[in-house]
């Protein structure tokens, strides 16, 4: 088929399906305005942006923001904290929903299983403002539950949230509390699709629960585990803005300030628009790069990968 006939066929198709294009154009307009225009706006990361000049007319600055980033002690601190938080999350917290799902899977009573699921999913639907309110309430130095127990045992109260070295443990526990039930869903789903005949024949061979879990359940959910593991690296530079912003205070900034909270302060409160955009771009590129890298490693070392 030559170019002219192909073009003719294309326009015929456009005319025939014009209603579909009309439908699509409405959400597409939203998408372009609110998702693509900001991507274009990333240009200011390479410029000295001034509001009166606009994006185009602002002068280029020879990567000055990126060079400054490497010398900015507050940025380095935020980068260090972000990496600490997300690496701990990937290697410490990541297995817990899997263990939770395995244990829940061993409960044979349907109603009990349902009740446990209903209760443990609940925190997932709460904003971090609410969760922070609950954390404050449990850890409060005067009225908090933990300190009430301490006092009862004759110990002095501790101001948990004022201690620098306690911030990250508190954050990780709160994040775990919020997400453990919900994160288990995906593993439970893939467990429920395991062929029951496998278990039956294993039982005939005299396998107990532990060996069934080790030899049937875990291998059959391994692909999901690997994919979740790869995906968790895409957020390696996300410490979790909502959680950190609501749980931190000025006393713990040294360990609590992450890239996102720093960007918020530098960008929206101090008005350093270009610099903050450069930080955002850095974060975005590293996140995408990490997924590619981990995916490549997963593909080399196992049979499973995202693509």
């Amino acid at each position, binding site marked *: 088929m030559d170019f002219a006939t192909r073009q003719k066929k294309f326009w015929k198709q456009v005319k025939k399906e014009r209603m*579909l294009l009309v439908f699509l154009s409405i959400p597409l307009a939203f998408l372009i305005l609110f998702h693509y225009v900001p*991507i274009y706006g*990333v240009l200011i990361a390479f410029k000295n942006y001034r509001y009166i000049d606009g994006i185009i007319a602002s002068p280029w600055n020879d990567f000055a923001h990126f060079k400054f980033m490497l010398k900015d002690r507050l940025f380095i601190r935020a980068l260090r904290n972000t990496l600490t938080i997300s690496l701990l999350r990937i290697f410490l917290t990541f297995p817990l929903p899997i263990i939770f799902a395995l244990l829940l899977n061993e409960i044979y009573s349907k109603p009990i299983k349902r009740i446990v699921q209903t209760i443990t999913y609940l925190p997932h639907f709460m904003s971090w403002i609410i969760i922070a309110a609950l954390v404050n309430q449990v850890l409060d130095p005067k009225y908090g539950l933990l300190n009430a127990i301490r006092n009862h045992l004759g110990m002095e109260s501790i101001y948990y949230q004022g201690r620098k070295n306690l911030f990250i443990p508190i954050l990780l526990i709160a994040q775990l509390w919020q997400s453990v039930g919900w994160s288990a869903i995906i593993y439970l789903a893939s467990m429920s699709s395991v062929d029951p005949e496998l278990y039956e024949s294993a039982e005939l061979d005299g396998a107990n629960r532990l060996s069934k879990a080790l030899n049937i359940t875990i291998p059959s959910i391994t692909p999901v585990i690997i994919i979740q593991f790869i995906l968790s690296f895409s957020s390696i530079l996300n410490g979790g803005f909502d959680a950190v912003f609501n749980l931190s205070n000025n006393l713990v900034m040294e360990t609590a300030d992450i890239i996102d909270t720093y960007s918020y302060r530098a960008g929206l409160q101090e008005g350093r628009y270009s610099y903050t955009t450069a930080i955002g771009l850095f974060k975005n590129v590293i996140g995408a790069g990490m997924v590619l890298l981990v995916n490549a490693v997963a593909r080399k070392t196992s049979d499973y990968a995202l693509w």
Partner: protein
Amino acid sequence: MNSRKKWRISVFSVCNGVIMALCCMAVIIPYWDLVMRSISGQKGAGSLSTMFFPKGFTLGTYMYLFKDDSMIRAFLVTISRTVAGTMLSLVLTMLAAYPLSKRDLPLRNLFTIVFLIPMFFSGGLIPSYLLNRSLGLVNNFLVYILPGAVGVYNTILCRNYLMSIDKALEESAFIDGAGYGMLLARIVTPLCKPILATLALFFAVGQWNAWFDSMIYAQSENLVVLQLKLRRMMDLTSMLEEDIALYMEMNNISNITTQSMRAATTVVTILPIVCVYPFIQQYFVKGIMVGSLKG
């Protein structure tokens, strides 16, 4: 041998049951404690002896909470954004997902890629802020609804669902001369009820819990959402104490504390979610399955 094996299994079951019970308690206790505090009128409330029962029972804190319009207004703003945002997102998602699910759509692959890219790359905080500012969305209710109206991930989810449903009904209507508009409104949308219910719940919970946009864009008190109100209450202790003291003096009561006040606000903020949650929970789970199986 056989009895010993049984005994070991039951030990495991008991341990497992205990672990599950502990997990549930870890979730429930903070909420229970919260409710007890919100109805306790005495200063020491929250200490161990009063954990399971209120100390100096009162509903005065809730009365104080709704004494002026500001709380009710925050409630109304939050409800408005939840309803309007959910509706708009549903309509736009459907309008995008339906054409993208059709093989006949010209340039279908290109459009699909255009919808996929924002999943991996975004402009970030400042470019979005500058855009919204130049669009006049600062201090404007529409900022709660418009920028997030088209969700990329949800569109793809809905498209995948549409591609998986049975086409027979749609095709026969098409042969009878129905146009795409008619098909979408009369035939496809009713078939999509399960996914639309799931998406509606995702959107609604997202809207109810949103606060960052309110913090950045709402300059007037009239636009502040409930969540942000709660956050401010956590910050401004001294102002809150003065206000409470004044209120108690005027009404001749003495049983409201900062603690009970914060707890009551938190309860009011989560109450709507907790009330509908048991009924909607199954839809969420279904939704996440649709996403994970075809994602």
